[in-house]
């Protein structure tokens, strides 16, 4: 294979700059000591991070998002794991339909899901309910859990499980001691990816959150449309740090390239 030429490498440098520019600028501006969003910044200060603490709207939205992401990722895994085991390892009528149904939120725009949920929640009187918001998020993130668990289930060798059963292990023991450890990276990876996606979700949530259940992305969107000051940058920088932290864990557990590309 030949090396990249000068033109290719210059192009590559520009693309990398393009990709990183908006994130780098946020982190730089977040540490400004100034009153306004001006660049270049003069000096270094944490005042806009401290300002977040005096703005309870962001704090409560942050904890709402964490609670929501934790609950929806965990429940989504609880439903998707048995379904993925069935779809990945058995052949049964309706299998294709179920697989398509569980992955369908990937092709339905979040916007359409958002108004559909809004309409549905208004009809059943669930507007502003946290429980139903969790259920709505589960729909959006289940495809991610399904995909990762399915990938690890369909790649595994079932003869080991059969061997355990022929050696006297009952089905539950065989599952717990053999199958579960083998698909564990897919499970934790799926959970983390679901968590991140729920934590970041805006377009659907903006239709179905109430002032009590408002999530961080929705709060940030509202804030950014009303006023622009460096606090938006410091909150954004915190989101970048949290996401980067989750990504490092995800990379250790499952391999980030494997999640994002689907293979090595």
């Amino acid at each position: 294979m030949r090396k990249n030429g000068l033109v290719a490498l210059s192009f590559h440098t520009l693309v990398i700059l393009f990709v990183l520019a908006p994130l780098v600028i946020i982190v730089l501006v977040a540490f400004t000591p100034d009153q306004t969003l001006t660049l270049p910044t003069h000096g270094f200060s944490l005042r806009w991070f401290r300002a977040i603490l005096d703005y309870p709207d962001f704090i409560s939205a942050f904890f709402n998002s964490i609670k929501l992401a934790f609950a929806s990722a965990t429940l989504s895994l609880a439903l998707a794991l048995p379904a993925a085991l069935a779809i990945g390892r058995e052949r049964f009528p309706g299998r294709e339909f179920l697989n398509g149904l569980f992955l369908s939120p990937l092709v339905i725009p979040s916007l359409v899901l958002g108004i559909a949920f809004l309409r549905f929640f208004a009809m059943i009187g669930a507007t502003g309910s946290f429980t139903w918001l969790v259920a709505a998020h589960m729909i959006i993130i289940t495809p991610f859990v399904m995909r990762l668990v399915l990938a690890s289930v369909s790649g595994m060798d079932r003869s080991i499980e059969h061997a355990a059963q022929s050696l006297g292990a009952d089905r539950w023991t065989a599952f717990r001691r053999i199958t579960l450890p083998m698909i564990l990276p897919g499970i934790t990876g799926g959970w983390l990816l679901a968590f991140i996606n729920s934590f970041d979700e805006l377009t659907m949530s903006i239709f179905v959150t109430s002032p009590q259940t408002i999530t961080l992305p929705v709060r940030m969107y509202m804030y950014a449309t009303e006023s622009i000051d460096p606090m938006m940058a410091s909150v954004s920088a915190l989101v970048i740090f949290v996401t980067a932290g989750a990504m490092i864990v995800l990379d250790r557990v499952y391999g980030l390239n494997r999640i994002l590309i689907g293979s090595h």
Partner: protein
Amino acid sequence: MASTIDSTGSDNSRALKNDRAPWHAFVPPWLMSLPAFILFAVLVLTPLAMTVVLTFYRFDPASGPIAAFQFGNYIEVLTDSYYQTIFARTFGIAILTTLLCVAIGAPEAYVLYRMRDPWRSMFLLVILAPLLVSVVVRAFGWSMLLNTGGIVNQFFGLFGLGPYKLEYTTFAIVIALVHVMLPFMVIPVWTSLQKLDPQVENAALSLMASPATTLRRIVLPQIAPGILSGSLMVFGLSASAFAIPGLLGGRRLKVAATAVYDEFLGSLNWPLGATIAILLLIANLVIMITYYRVLERRYSRSLG
């Protein structure tokens, strides 16, 4: 579920000899899928059906939506030049974003493919990782880069140009959308490059094909399916994008998604908002299926 069990009931399966398992063998996988199926039946199938029904409702500014079956909302959206402009802008932005993603994403995936490993994994991560950072954050980053006193205008200022009005323009929406969508182009092209045998490329070169010819005749046909699936993904997501046009387009430059938002949460005309959303969904599906069919036919013909 019950009807599925009945339709493949014991009589039928016994008639199908031994190559078909008896119906009770299917009960465990059905039971395992049942909880997730219930969730999706309640929260995907039902709300979507209700939204379609809503598009036929009449809207009364005083009392809200009134149950009806009429096509007034569809006629209004399809004939009013206000909504035609919004749809034209939406699809124009989606097409432009898709073209730019092809122009940037495909070559970049190829450059990455030809790199050696510590660099290759690192840069791949740099390009793909922003996928996981909230889109609100990235939109905000672009609004800081593009505003009148922003870095981009300061850069132009060095050459005595500008300042230009970049924020709240179609240009700003497209640039930020390309930034958000780029990974969706790089991933499928990268995946199809993985199947490319470097020896074929070397063979073409050793047979005196110029690098440009090799790229055009050997590499490009191999990554065409990747570019195709990437384009479909980018187009679909751009046409229904909400946060980027909402934050970088301002109130004046409406696209379909922000128009739906305004109808639902601003003027509270839910039937009309639902109609725009369903039309967006249909238009999206039609364009994607047509595009896919055309390219698939051409592709299968070229392969013989």
